[in-house]
C-alpha cells in the first residue's frame, strides 16, 4: 500500500511540474524559481553521486560547473556553435576535467582529499577570474544566447520565453535524476556504496576502487557542467562569482540538507534553497544564515537530511505490514 501511494504522489508531482506554466501563469516568478531549482539541482545530483553515494567529499564541485559554463559560453559566442553542440562539448570537457583532477585527488584520503579538491576548485575559479582574453575575467561574460529556436513541423519554438526555457531546464533535470536512479539502483551503484562504507573491504572483494572513483567523479563533474551551461544560458551571462568556493559550499549544503545518499535529496535541497526565502519573505542574507544553521543542525541531529526526515515520518504514518520488505 505504501509503495503504490508513493508512486501516485510521484506522478502527481510530475504532473504538476509538467503543467507548471499553466498554474503559474499569474505568478511568473514561481516559474522562474522552478527554473532556478532545476539549475541548482543538476550539479547537486552530481555531487550526491560523489559525496552521498560514494563518500567523496569534494569541496570544489562548482569549479566544474564553471568549466562547463565557460566552455559553452566561448563555443556559443566566439565560435558560434549551437547550444546543443556546446552543451555536449561542455559536458565532455567537465567530465574529462573530472577524470584528470580526480586522479590527482584520489592519491589522498580524509582531510587531504578534501583540501586538494578545494584547491582545484579555487584554481578553476582563479582561471575564470583572471584569464581575461578567454573568459572576460571578473567582469563576467555577457551575451550568452538562449538555445536557437527549434523547428517542430510548422511551429518554431524559441527559448526566449520563460515557459519554453522551463521545459528545457525541467527536461535536463529529469534526465539528471534518471541517470542518478539508473546508477544507484544497479551493480555500479552497489559498488560505489561499498566503496563508501568500507574501501578496504571493497578492494578485497575485487573492486578496482580507483577506477570506480574516477568514473563517479567524471560523471559528477559532467553533471555539474550541464548545470553550469543551463545556468549561463538562462541568465545570459557567466560570472566567476557563480562558481567560487562559497557556491561549492552551497552545493554541499543542498546535498546534505536535502539528504545525502538519497534519490530525492538533491531535489528537496534545491527546493528548499531556492524556495525558502520566497516563502519566508526574507532578505537574502538571512536565507543563508538559516541555511548555514540548518546545515549544522542537520549534521548534528538529522544526518540523513530532509529525505531522511520525510522517510521516517512516512514510516511512522504507514501502518506496519507483516513480513519483511
Amino acid at each position, binding site marked *: 500500500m505504501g509503495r503504490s501511494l508513493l508512486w501516485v504522489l510521484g506522478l502527481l508531482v510530475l504532473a504538476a511540474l509538467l503543467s507548471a506554466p499553466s498554474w503559474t501563469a499569474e505568478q511568473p516568478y514561481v516559474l522562474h524559481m522552478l527554473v532556478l531549482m532545476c539549475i541548482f539541482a543538476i550539479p547537486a545530483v552530481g555531487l550526491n553521486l560523489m559525496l552521498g553515494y560514494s*563518500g567523496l*567529499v569534494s*569541496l570544489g564541485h562548482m569549479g566544474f560547473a564553471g568549466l562547463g559554463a565557460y566552455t559553452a559560453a566561448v563555443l556559443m559566442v566566439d565560435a558560434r556553435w549551437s547550444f546543443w553542440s556546446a552543451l555536449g562539448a561542455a559536458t565532455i570537457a567537465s567530465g574529462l576535467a573530472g577524470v584528470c583532477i580526480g586522479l*590527482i585527488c584520489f*592519491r*589522498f*584520503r*580524509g*582531510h*587531504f582529499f*578534501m*583540501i*586538494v579538491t*578545494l*584547491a*582545484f576548485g*579555487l*584554481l578553476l575559479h*582563479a582561471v575564470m*577570474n*583572471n584569464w581575461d582574453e578567454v573568459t572576460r575575467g571578473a567582469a563576467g561574460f555577457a551575451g550568452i544566447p538562449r538555445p536557437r529556436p527549434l523547428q517542430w513541423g510548422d511551429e518554431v519554438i524559441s527559448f526566449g520565453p520563460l515557459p519554453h526555457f522551463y521545459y528545457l531546464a525541467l527536461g535536463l533535470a529529469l534526465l539528471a535524476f534518471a541517470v542518478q536512479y539508473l546508477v544507484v539502483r544497479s551493480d555500479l551503484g552497489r559498488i560505489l556504496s561499498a566503496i563508501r562504507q568500507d*574501501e*578496504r573491504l571493497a578492494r578485497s572483494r575485487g573492486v578496482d576502487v580507483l577506477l570506480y572513483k574516477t568514473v563517479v567523479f567524471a560523471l559528477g563533474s559532467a553533471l555539474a557542467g550541464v548545470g553550469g551551461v543551463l545556468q549561463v544560458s538562462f541568465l545570459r551571462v557567466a560570472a566567476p562569482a557563480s562558481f567560487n*568556493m*562559497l557556491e561549492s*559550499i*552551497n552545493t*554541499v*549544503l543542498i546535498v*546534505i540538507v536535502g539528504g545525502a545518499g538519497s534519490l530525492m535529496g538533491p531535489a528537496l535541497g534545491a527546493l528548499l534553497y531556492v524556495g525558502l526565502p520566497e516563502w519566508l519573505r526574507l*532578505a537574502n*542574507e*538571512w*536565507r*543563508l*544564515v538559516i*541555511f*548555514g*544553521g*540548518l*546545515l*549544522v543542525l542537520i*549534521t*548534528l541531529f538529522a*544526518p540523513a537530511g530532509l529525505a531522511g526526515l520525510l522517510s521516517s515520518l512516512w514510516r511512522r504514518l504507514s501502518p506496519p505490514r507483516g513480513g519483511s520488505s
Partner: protein
Amino acid sequence: MGEVLLEQLINGLMMGSVYVLVALGMVLIYGVMHVVNFAHGVLFTLGGYLGYFFYHRVFDSYPLAIVLAVLSLAVIGVLLERGVFRPLTGNLRNQVIASLGLILFLENLVVALWGPNALQWKVATTEHWVQLGELRFSLHHLGIIVVTLLLVTALGLFLKYTRFGTAIRATSQSQEAAIVVGIPVRTVQWSSFALGCMLAGVGGALVGPLFLVFPQMGDVPLIKGLAGILLGGMGSVPGAVIGGMILGVTESVSTLFLPTDYRDSIAFMMMVAILLLRPQGLFGQRMRGED
C-alpha cells in the same frame, strides 16, 4: 631595485604575519582535535567586525578593542567546540560539513548585521609613518609584524615551558597516551580550540584597519592558512610559522615578476604542489593513512 625588493620583503613579512596567525590557530586545532577547521576564515572575519564594533561603539581605544574582540572570540570558540565539534567527534566528514555550515551561518550573519558593504576602520596607527631609508611604512604595517612576533614567542614559550602547554603538546602527539597519563583531554580540546579562535580573531582585528572590514575578508586568509600549514607540515607549530612566512614573502616578491592578479593563485598552486610532492610538508610526520 634593491629598494623595491626590500619594500616587498617587508610587505611579505607583514602579510606573512597575518597568515601565520591564521595558520597557528588552525594547526593548534588540528593537532589536538585532528580536524581542519574550515570555519577558521569566518572567525578571522568576526575578529575584524568585533574589533570594529568595540572600537566604535564601546571604547575608542584600538588595543582595548582588540582585546575585547579576542575575548569574545574565545567565548565563541568554546561554544563552537562544545556545541558543534565535540558531539561530532570521530566523524571527520560531518565535522567538516558542520564547519562549512558555520561558514555560511557566520559569514551571512555578519552581512545581516552589518550590511554587505565594506567598512572603513580608521585607527591611529595607520596614520603614523615610519621611515626606513627611502621607504615609508605605516606604524600599523610594522605593528602587525611585531605583534605577531610577540604572540608567536609567547605561544612558543607557553607550549614548551608551562604545564598546560605541555599537556597540549602531549595531546597532539597521542590522545590515548595523554588520557593514560591523566591529562584532561577535554579541557585541552576546548581551550586549544578557543586559543585557535583567539589567534584568528587577532588576525582579523589587526588586518581590519589596514584593508577594509568586509564579510568575505576571511575567505582568502583561510586558504592562505591552509597553504601555510600544508607547507609547514600538518601538525607542526613551527611549521605553521615558517610556512605562513614563506607564503607571505613569496607572494609579495612575486608581484615584482607576475601580474598581481595571479598572486593568490600562488597559494593554490603551492597547495597542490606540496600535496603531490611532499604531503608531509617541511616538518610534518609521514601522513597516517586516514582511511
